[in-house]
């Protein structure tokens, strides 16, 4: 973990170069089996004059974050040879803080997927069991942290792309308030839902990294003003916000037939009881089932529509492999036909359908209306509660052959509720809380907009209850 490495570096028990070499060696050793990386960096590079808690610490960046002079593909063939000429703000901040980049991590193509199976360079495997997926889209970042290659990695989250793989990988995944971390240089998927966030192996580490990369940015008008807080220091103060709730319609064990889901929910209710015994007040609250059922379609409509528009810049003309043809239209057509995989094309066609004039009112605008209803209801809940606590997934990571199996409507809600955090821009964190069938499962805590420190603080106290801090794949806490 970062705090331990910091101590070892400060006491000169290890050098930053040694940490880098070790991380690169491990990244290469594990690459064939897990495929965490698109690019592994060979050359040690550090800002010597940096002075931060992250100085000398190795880390990984998702490959949809712009890094000048380093290949950045978004795991898509349409960008397979793209070398950016500018740095994303999050990368610039980490460079200036003296953190050392080890590699660019594999993602679902263009971040549009939740399985980690659609990268142009192949599937990412779960470090806890290589026959299972790790989830996505920030699959490689989750795997690199779960494997212990790096103590932290940066990801992006549009529906649950940090928080779901964190659950499947037994690590911490934190997506702060929308705009808390600049998105300049993040390849846009769905701009009104996109967030940058972090993977770590402890809540404290998530606070440490967020402290370094948050803040306003002249290049991103949606980046928030600095709240002036050190999230790490806030963790050491007494927590006064201890009123939590869970959504009854999602957490009722009797509604499910799958034995692993039942086990997860049983463990979840045990955790709630433990939280109560540690001074938390936890109630069950209701959200209209119709709204909960609408989360997934609302997410699909908004994200596909925005993605269709955002990815119009991928033409193969200024960058990316050039298509063939005798006119600009023909070469664009050819580049896009060859460059996008089938799955991405299917999502884009859906986006195109949604944005047709005759469908805009019924589909796109109605989805935007439902988004408001959901966010309004959640904000109403936040008048009485400091956070909503829910299982981050119904069970451990699925195996590759079962990932496309149909699940019940009830389970669709359980597996997709974290998009609420994107609809409303709420700070939201997943931490490991139990094992089901020897696979880790996370619990998710979502709080009020701007209260990132409180969400982290609540998560820290729950981490103390679960005792699942600092895990790497292979550690068993059954």
């Amino acid at each position, binding site marked *: 973990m970062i705090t331990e490495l910091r101590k070892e570096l400060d006491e000169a028990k290890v050098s930053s170069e040694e940490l880098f070499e070790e991380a690169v060696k491990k990244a290469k050793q594990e690459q064939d089996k897990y495929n965490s990386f698109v690019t592994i960096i060979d050359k040690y590079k550090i800002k010597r004059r940096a002075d931060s808690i992250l100085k000398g610490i190795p880390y990984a960046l998702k490959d949809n974050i712009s890094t000048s002079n380093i290949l950045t593909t978004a795991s898509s063939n349409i960008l397979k*040879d793209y*070398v950016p*000429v*500018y740095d994303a703000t999050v990368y610039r901040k980490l460079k200036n803080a003296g953190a050392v980049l080890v590699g660019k991590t594999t993602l679902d193509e263009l971040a549009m997927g939740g399985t980690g199976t659609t990268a142009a360079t192949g599937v990412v495997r779960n470090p806890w069991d290589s026959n299972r997926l790790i989830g996505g889209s920030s699959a490689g970042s989750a795997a690199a942290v779960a494997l212990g290659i790096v103590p932290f990695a940066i990801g992006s989250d549009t529906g649950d792309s940090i928080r779901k793989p964190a659950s499947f990988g037994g690590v911490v995944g934190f997506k702060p308030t*929308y*705009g808390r971390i600049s998105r300049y240089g993040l390849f846009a998927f769905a701009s*009104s*839902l996109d967030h940058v966030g972090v993977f770590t192996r402890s809540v404290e580490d998530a606070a440490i990294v967020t402290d370094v990369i948050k803040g306003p940015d*002249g290049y991103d*008008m*949606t980046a*928030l*003003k600095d709240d002036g807080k050190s999230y790490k220091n806030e963790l050491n103060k007494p927590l006064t916000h201890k009123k939590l709730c869970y959504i009854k319609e999602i957490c009722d064990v009797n509604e499910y037939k799958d034995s692993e889901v039942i086990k997860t929910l049983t463990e979840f209710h045990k955790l709630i009881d433990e939280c109560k015994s540690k001074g938390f007040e936890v109630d069950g609250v209701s959200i209209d089932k119709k*709204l909960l059922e*609408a989360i*997934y*379609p609302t997410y*699909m*409509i908004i994200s596909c529509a925005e993605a*269709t528009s955002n990815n119009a810049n991928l*033409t193969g*003309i*200024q960058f*990316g492999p*050039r298509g063939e*043809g*005798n*006119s*600009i239209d*023909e070469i664009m*057509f050819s580049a*896009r*036909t060859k460059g*996008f995989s*089938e799955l991405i*094309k*299917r999502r*884009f*066609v859906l986006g*195109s*359908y949604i944005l*047709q004039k005759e469908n805009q009112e*019924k*589909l796109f*605008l*109605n*989805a*935007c*209306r*439902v*988004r*408001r*209803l959901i*966010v309004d209801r959640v904000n109403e809940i936040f008048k009485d509660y400091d956070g909503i606590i829910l299982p981050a997934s119904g069970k451990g990571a699925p195996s590759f052959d079962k990932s496309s199996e149909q699940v019940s409507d009830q389970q669709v809600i359980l597996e997709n509720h974290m998009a609420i955090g*994107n*609809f*409303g*821009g*709420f700070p939201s964190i997943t931490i490991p809380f139990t094992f089901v069938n020897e696979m880790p499962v996370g619990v998710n805590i979502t709080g009020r*907009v701007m209260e990132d420190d409180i969400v982290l603080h609540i998560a820290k106290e729950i981490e103390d209850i679960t005792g699942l801090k600092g895990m790497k794949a292979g550690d068993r806490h059954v």
Partner: protein
Amino acid sequence: MIEKDKLKEYAKKLMFDMNEEEYETLQKEFDVILRQMDIIDKIPNLHEVEPMTFPFLLKDRSLRDDEVGDYLTVGEVLANTKHQVNDQVKVPKVVEE
């Protein structure tokens, strides 16, 4: 079921094509997706709600000062294309002879 020709039309508007098998998969997928989307229609009085296009209202927004900042050089702009002429990206002739 949505017509395959319609799907082809939508794909072509986005400037790509798929093969017949892929269109058939998409056609079946559309059926499922459209059923999912019907869930939204079941929510009452939606027309009274203002569509939400951003997570929350950003207050105190001000534009940054209009100062010259970092900018890309011509070499940087052209760094990712082999097709260039006279410091510009080269494309096929637009105006036909």
